[in-house]
């Protein structure tokens, strides 16, 4: 089985890799490119821990083939902070203790970033439904929702 050569853009950087035809993008990111921020919680699109943004759409990277990324734009949690400045969502997740074990956090941050890009002023209900594809087993979601509300507030003022 021959590898497929893929040229893509990840967090603004041009990246090239070889992957197998059936290899999920998540495995490419983690095992070939060392971008382990996206996590595999299920591998079947049910937990959202592997969330990335692909051409401005939120997707589970476990449900995308590495081969499909040819010519596309990928955003991962590793690209959220700029230099020494955290993204407001990252900062608010810290301040609100919106994480306990933290394994779901990269997925939540990416999903929340996508949510606020499309809806800068979401209601609690919109946040809850917008993040329903991301499972968290530690927090009961309370502090996550509050962190997203607070980040939305900060981002609107910026």
């Amino acid at each position, binding site marked *: 089985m021959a590898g497929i050569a893929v040229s893509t853009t990840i967090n603004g950087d041009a990246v090239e890799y070889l992957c*197998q035809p059936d290899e999920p993008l998540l495995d490419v990111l*983690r095992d070939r490119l060392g*971008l*382990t*921020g*996206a*996590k*595999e*919680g*299920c*591998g*079947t699109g*049910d*937990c959202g*821990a592997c969330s990335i943004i692909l051409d401005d759409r939120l997707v589970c990277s476990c449900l995308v083939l590495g081969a499909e990324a040819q010519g596309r734009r990928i955003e*991962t*949690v*590793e690209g*959220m*902070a700029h230099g020494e400045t*955290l993204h407001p969502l*990252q900062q608010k*997740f*810290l*301040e*609100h*203790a919106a*994480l*306990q*074990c*933290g*394994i*779901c*956090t*990269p997925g939540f*941050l990416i999903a929340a970033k996508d949510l606020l890009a499309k809806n800068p002023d979401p209601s*609690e*209900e919109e*946040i*809850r*439904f917008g*993040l*329903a*594809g*991301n*499972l*968290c*087993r*530690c*927090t*009961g*979601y*309370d*502090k*996550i*929702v*509050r962190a997203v509300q607070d980040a939305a507030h900060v981002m609107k003022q910026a």
Partner: protein
Amino acid sequence: MNFDPRYANRNFASVGTRPIRPDGIDKVTGRARYGADFNMAGQLVGRVLRSPHAHAKIRKIDTSKAEKLQGVKAVITAADLPDLTDGDAAMYDILDNCMARAKALYDGHAVAAVAAIDARTARQALKLIEIDYEVLPHVTDVDEAMRHHAPLINDTIFTEGLEEKPAKPSNVTKRSQFGHGDVHAGFGAADFIVERSFRTEQTHQGYIEPHACVASVNLDGTAELWVCTQGHFVYRQHCAQLLGLEASKLRVTSSEIGGGFGGKTHVWAEPVALALSRKAGRPVKLVMTRDEVFRASGPTSATSIDVRIGARKDGTITAAEATLRYSSGPYAGSWAEIGAMTAFACYKLDNVRTVGYEVLVNRPKTAAYRAPSAPMAAFAVESAVDELAKEIGIDPVDFRIKNAAQEGTRSSYGPVYGPIGIGPTLEAVKNHPHMKAPLKQNQGRGMACGFWFNFGGQTCVDLNIGMDGSVSLAVGTVDVGGSRASLSLVAAEELGIDYSQLKAIVADTASLGYNDMTDGSRGTFSSSMATISAARNAIKILRDRAAQMWDIPVEDVIWEQGHAVAKGDNYGNLGKLSLKEIAAQSGKTGGPIAGHSELVADGAGVSFATHICDVEVDPETGATRVIRYTVVQDAGKAVHPTYVEGQYQGGAAQGIGWALNEEYIYGKDGRLQNAGFLDYRIPVCSDLPMIDTQILEIPNPNHPYGVRGVGETSIVPPLAAIANAVSNAAGVRMTHIPMSPPRILAAIEAEREG
């Protein structure tokens, strides 16, 4: 233990504040390394072959074809592991669960494993392993497993704890009993008696991170293991013992852990990965799939519980008894015993008796799950308590307040309580605005109480002061939800320095003395005790160094707010020496400054919580929505209140999932039908409301700051609180958990039809 753990009232500078956790930045930037985020040069991929049968004799395993596949570097079966048949029974069970020896005992039981150059080759190799099974009759239901003619899972099991050894083996491994007084007389004195039977289905801890490890065994017998675990020292002991390695030559590093809740207190994949690495002569990475996590790791017990409670017209409980049957998977456990101990722990009872039966079934080995066994017992008891209150015609909160245990009460499991928080949580709930909020049609309110013991245990901490005055704190209890932050606060408090001067890490097994695992809500309780002790030891040295710098007797130096102060009229002109100033001179005053502590943190204070819950039930579909939820719990002293709230909220959310939708569903073939997050339905964000919390602080007399464990108790009341709320909303008593929509609708329809 050269350390006085007794509580002393004080004002806190750091403890009780809410700073950002030390591991936070790594976790929001994706840099934190979890079990599967670590790799070693030349590492192989390990995969496990699992039994598709619930119960089957393994006649023969032929691995020859798999071994010949190009890229396969090792294949192992139980034959490659030590035979512990005549050794310690508990260790035998642990190893047999890692790799079946004579029989596959549940769907998903590991029977062989391979290490290969990549995942594809490993998967292909598994398909080439031929196993000759003799399929045996199976039993997965706890009540059915107790019947006379049930398939026998282990014919060497004769029920322990009976007056006489039974004549025949059975699936009941143990009977246990607790209580005091005369239950018969107590029921005789009752005006009202409620008697009910309850069932709860098996649930999984549902941590988002699957089990993962990287094992590397060298030819000289030394080995390294990187693993997500709640207790790397315990994993080291178990792996070494199971595989015949020397513990001190096996260095175990705990990765960041993506949730455990009790499910990462037992070894599963780790001995297998080590054995594969030893055989292949290369590092092996073994990561479970989600399917494997559900089929082969950690579920809690399924239960069947009978409760009987009697009370006088005035609302005094006169007698209480319960029979609790808990499944333990195919190996002996003590889960019903814990249920029997905790069942009536909230109440002051003159006559109480509980009996527990441990039952073998063809399901995965039961593992601890957050306050293990207590939620199911609380569900049964608190449901019956609510009904009894209704029969008597007394408010359920008042009824509980009237019968609540207090300091000096003999607990239902034996000892007399010290200062405890059940009464205060009930009073707080009685006065909470939530209790007075109006309800709409099809809505119902429920409340319930819960108890958990909390544990301490062996603990070791190192505190090192750098020459620049910064402080590193190395602890050995795995941080499952923010304990590095709370322990940093404690060290800052004791040393009198700012939180930002400290960095806490979890040390590996080669760098620190033994620590029990992070279970039983012990992380912050135990390690804070050891941290206080280590800091006090460091302060002794700091005072000594200051005395040298001043050239005065050390007895005249005291430690105050992060500074050495010379006490006495003669030293008026000496000023103060900061920790930083003393540290800067340490090279010239005797070398590095450090504080060490090793102790057994015992005397963990028991903990109580009372929860309030409002639900809305759709009477046409049985769908339930939780619309408001409040947790009131005693924390002792809340070291980092935000993370204490987080524990309360997280436990409540897990309890809500358990109460409403989570359950293991087995087919008639004994196979698990919902081994994934699609059909094992843990709550999603849109399922839940905000979860309000109220922290009560009733100091634990056996901790210098009054800290109690907080992690587990919060999962104890929800099953019952929601059952009471649903029963009030739907107008019919729900006795089977989870209260899934089909069960609720069936109950409503049955009630309608009378």
